[in-house]
């Protein structure tokens, strides 16, 4: 997969990786994470390295800065040129001292979690100035002036004041701006951005992507963009390398890759990416199939001016998570609840399951009023409610087998006397979620994330509930796994006909499954309607912005959307 360069391009190369191999030692013995990777990045170019978890993309990124842990061992060459092209170094072979000099001046890094990439006990100014002063003798005043300048340039308002702020005084998006400022301050030729927007909300993501684009265009900085998000790739990348199980399986410029992917894995990966507009036909077909009596049925869930406030401490006012939200879910209907972090979407799901108390208003679940909740009176209804949690890692008791966990609802509600007695039904359920029967004897940690979410679905559906609440069930999964779980969910919903509240931050995911979509913003419901209404012709400015911020996996279309978003912002 090695590219051959003609000599002018060779001069312009900032980074060349030749036959890189990285191994880690683990409890289970040596494991090879990166295998024979060769890549190159030219000046002012954005190279995206795309892959799912375990593909070795992050390891590759860390190798470029020599940040691998001591348990790792790298082979091959990572040739890094300085910005002026005067010197080049093989990072793998550098001494500690030289490596330190290269970091920050020739190459720098932007991290995934801006919240953890900043030291909480020092001001951002101190941290930026430290980076400046680590490379040459600069006096305090000059370093400070430089830090203020760079903060201003990455779009931090009032940099003269905010330079003295501690990280926790910034919002998530601003923290990422600060992290980018730190990476830019010594004007390195290359920035390695490791999932720079994954921890951010989609509207903030669009801003950070804009900023990274300006880094390239205005600073002439090359960027190695590590991401799993095809939309982000389409938005920013000039060239794309697809990694799978430690190897680069395909490398091409962005438009070629998206338009005519060659490698089967790339094709599968692109096909799995959800996009807005997928669900319209399906939802219409479902609506078509419904009988006229359907709309006369009593809804499964009715929320009326629902308000949920978390108790504050010691007389302090609590946080209002949900503020005057009204909606309903009819039998057999899937309501998609969309919102960014802090919108209150999870709180609503928990309130329906009786895990969070209702403060004010009314919430009727299966005819039972949840305001003034009493566990004893609600208990008999619990067999009609299923819940799928977000985190596949913690949704099963690590000490019980999958069969024991799936059997639990059957035992609790007296349908079976023991896990053994429930086994036949458990096997049936596992097959329904397309897991082999034998998986029942495994422990949760022996299953992958996607398999665990399937088992979680099996447990939630064990009692054939009338209502299923799914709280971001796929957000921790890889794209290809997510696609399969979503498909399974849709199949099961069609077969069993349960009503569902599907909570997600991703409009495209919700679109695939939902009959109707409700959009939450800071605890209030800003828009509700069918997928065609909400996503086709959004009325609320927030929905419009949310939709426009969602990057699509197509570079040409994404360029157009970017313009739309810019217009929206200018208008808003």
């Amino acid at each position, binding site marked *: 997969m090695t590219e051959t360069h003609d000599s002018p391009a060779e001069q312009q190369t900032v980074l060349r990786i030749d036959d890189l191999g990285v191994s880690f030692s683990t409890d289970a013995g040596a494991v090879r994470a990166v295998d024979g990777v060769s890549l190159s990045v030219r000046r002012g170019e954005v190279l995206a390295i795309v892959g799912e978890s375990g593909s070795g993309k992050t390891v590759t990124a860390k190798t470029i800065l020599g940040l691998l842990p001591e348990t790792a061992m790298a082979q091959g060459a990572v040739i890094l040129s300085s910005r002026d092209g005067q010197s080049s170094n093989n990072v793998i072979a550098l001494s500690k001292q030289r490596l330190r000099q290269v970091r920050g001046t020739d190459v720098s*890094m932007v991290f995934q979690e801006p919240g*953890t990439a900043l030291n*909480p*006990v020092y001001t951002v100014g101190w941290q930026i100035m*430290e980076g400046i002063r680590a490379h040459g003798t600069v006096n305090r005043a000059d370093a400070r002036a430089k830090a203020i300048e760079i903060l201003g*340039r990455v779009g931090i308002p009032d940099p003269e004041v905010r330079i003295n702020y501690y990280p*926790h005084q910034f919002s998530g*998006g601003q923290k990422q701006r600060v992290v980018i400022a730190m990476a830019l301050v010594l004007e390195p030729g290359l920035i390695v951005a490791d999932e720079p927007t994954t921890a951010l909300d989609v509207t903030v993501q669009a801003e950070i992507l804009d900023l990274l684009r300006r880094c390239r265009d205005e600073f002439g900085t090359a960027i190695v963009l590590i991401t799993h998000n095809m939309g982000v790739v389409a938005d920013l990348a000039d060239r794309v390398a697809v990694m799978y199980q430690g190897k680069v399986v395909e490398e091409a410029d962005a438009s070629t890759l998206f338009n005519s992917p060659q490698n089967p894995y790339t094709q599968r990966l692109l096909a799995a990416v959800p996009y807005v507009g997928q669900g319209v036909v399906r939802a219409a077909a479902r609506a078509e199939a419904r009988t006229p009596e359907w709309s006369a049925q009593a809804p499964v869930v009715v929320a009326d001016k629902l308000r949920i406030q978390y108790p504050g401490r010691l007389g302090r006012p609590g946080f209002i998570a949900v503020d005057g939200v009204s909606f309903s879910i009819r039998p057999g209907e899937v309501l998609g609840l969309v919102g960014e972090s802090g919108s209150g979407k999870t709180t609503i799901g928990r309130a329906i399951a009786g895990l969070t108390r209702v403060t004010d208003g009314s919430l009727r679940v299966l005819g039972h009023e949840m305001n003034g909740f009493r566990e004893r009176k609600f208990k008999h209804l619990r067999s009609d409610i299923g819940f799928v949690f977000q985190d596949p890692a913690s949704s099963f008791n690590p000490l019980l087998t999958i069969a024991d966990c799936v059997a639990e609802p059957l035992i609790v509600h007296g349908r079976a006397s023991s896990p053994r007695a429930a086994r036949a039904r458990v096997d049936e359920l596992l097959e329904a979620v397309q897991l082999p029967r034998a998986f029942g004897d495994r422990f949760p940690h022996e299953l992958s994330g996607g398999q665990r979410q399937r088992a979680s679905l099996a447990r939630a559906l064990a009692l054939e509930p009338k209502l299923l609440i799914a709280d971001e069930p796929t957000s921790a999964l890889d794209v290809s796994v997510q696609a399969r779980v979503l498909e399974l969910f849709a199949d099961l919903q069609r077969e069993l006909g349960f009503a569902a509240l599907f909570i997600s931050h991703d409009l495209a995911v919700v679109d695939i499954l939902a009959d109707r979509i409700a959009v939450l913003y800071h605890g209030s419901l800003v828009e509700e309607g069918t997928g065609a209404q909400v996503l086709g012709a959004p009325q609320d400015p927030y929905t419009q912005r949310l939709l426009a911020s969602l990057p699509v996996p197509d570079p040409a279309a994404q360029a157009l959307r970017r313009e739309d978003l810019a217009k929206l912002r200018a208008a808003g």
Partner: protein
Amino acid sequence: MTTVISTPTTPGAISATKKKPSGGGGIGRYLLVRFLLIFPTIFILVSMVFWLMRTTGDPITAALGGRLGPDQLAERIHAAGYDRPILIQYVEYLGQIFTGNFGTTLSTNRPVSEVLLTYGAATAELAFYSLLVAFIVGIPLGMVAAYWRDKSPDAFLRIFAILCYATPVFFAGLLFKLVFAVWLKVLPVAGRASTGSELQMQVLPNKTGFYTIDALQTGNSAVLVDVLSHAVLPALALGLLTAGVFLRLVRTNVIGTLGTDYVDAARSRGVSEFRLVRKHAYRPALIPIITVIGLQIALLLGGAVLTETTFEWKGLGFMLSEFLKARDFVAVQGIVALLAVIVALSNFIVDVIAALIDPRVRY
């Protein structure tokens, strides 16, 4: 390169600082709550000590039972009010504590608060020197161990730390005495000062009880050397115990923070490894370290009782063991209650320091 990256920011982006976890005035409230918490702590400990000690019977029988006839005993008990309902005694006792009255010793017939004034300085002095040893030895070595993690210096230091806190202070004290005082004869065996020095300090007009300060006041360098040489072994015995705990604590916490993203981020900016440990890992680690150090005050006080007994260092701990031998439980109860107050207060101070160091609490 003068172009400004002008990024259009949505209204939400700038105002997003609004949801600070602890709003303005958070620290004032925190400190107030923390301060108020001192009182239930003292109340619980004092009550516990009272009820525990009094379930065994009255202190007079415990101290003098067998030595006095039953009639005399009853008379003494009545005079001291120990035959009244225990609840009344309890309320009275709480009231006394509140006014700073910790009772009167049976064996020496002195107010416990006076015992404190006389001997408290000695314990404070010992605690000060021990903490000094602990800080000087424990904290830098902890950082060294974290820096050389899993290498031979780390191995050596970890064994050293375990040895420090696996050795009972009194045994360490005995060994030190044996080696430095008896065999090498370079340091005094026991006590806080030699008789000559004590006499010189005795006549000072405003003596503090802190021998180091008093020795300075005499202006006689021989007295100062004498006082300091007496302090070396007890401070080492008690200080090394605490140093071992500190070493382990600093090592664990610094290793923890060394694995964080922000250390990696600083490394990616070219910050040196030494500076990573010294600045980036140590400062954030300091907050949990200080909190746990607060809990070590208890260890230090418990250790002080043993150290003072070993070295006949006439402080509160030494007196406590004397009163125990004399079975003077009024005095024991008083001293223990007093130590409870000290522990509660010092934990409060430590928490305040930890809060002040943490910018997340401060702003």
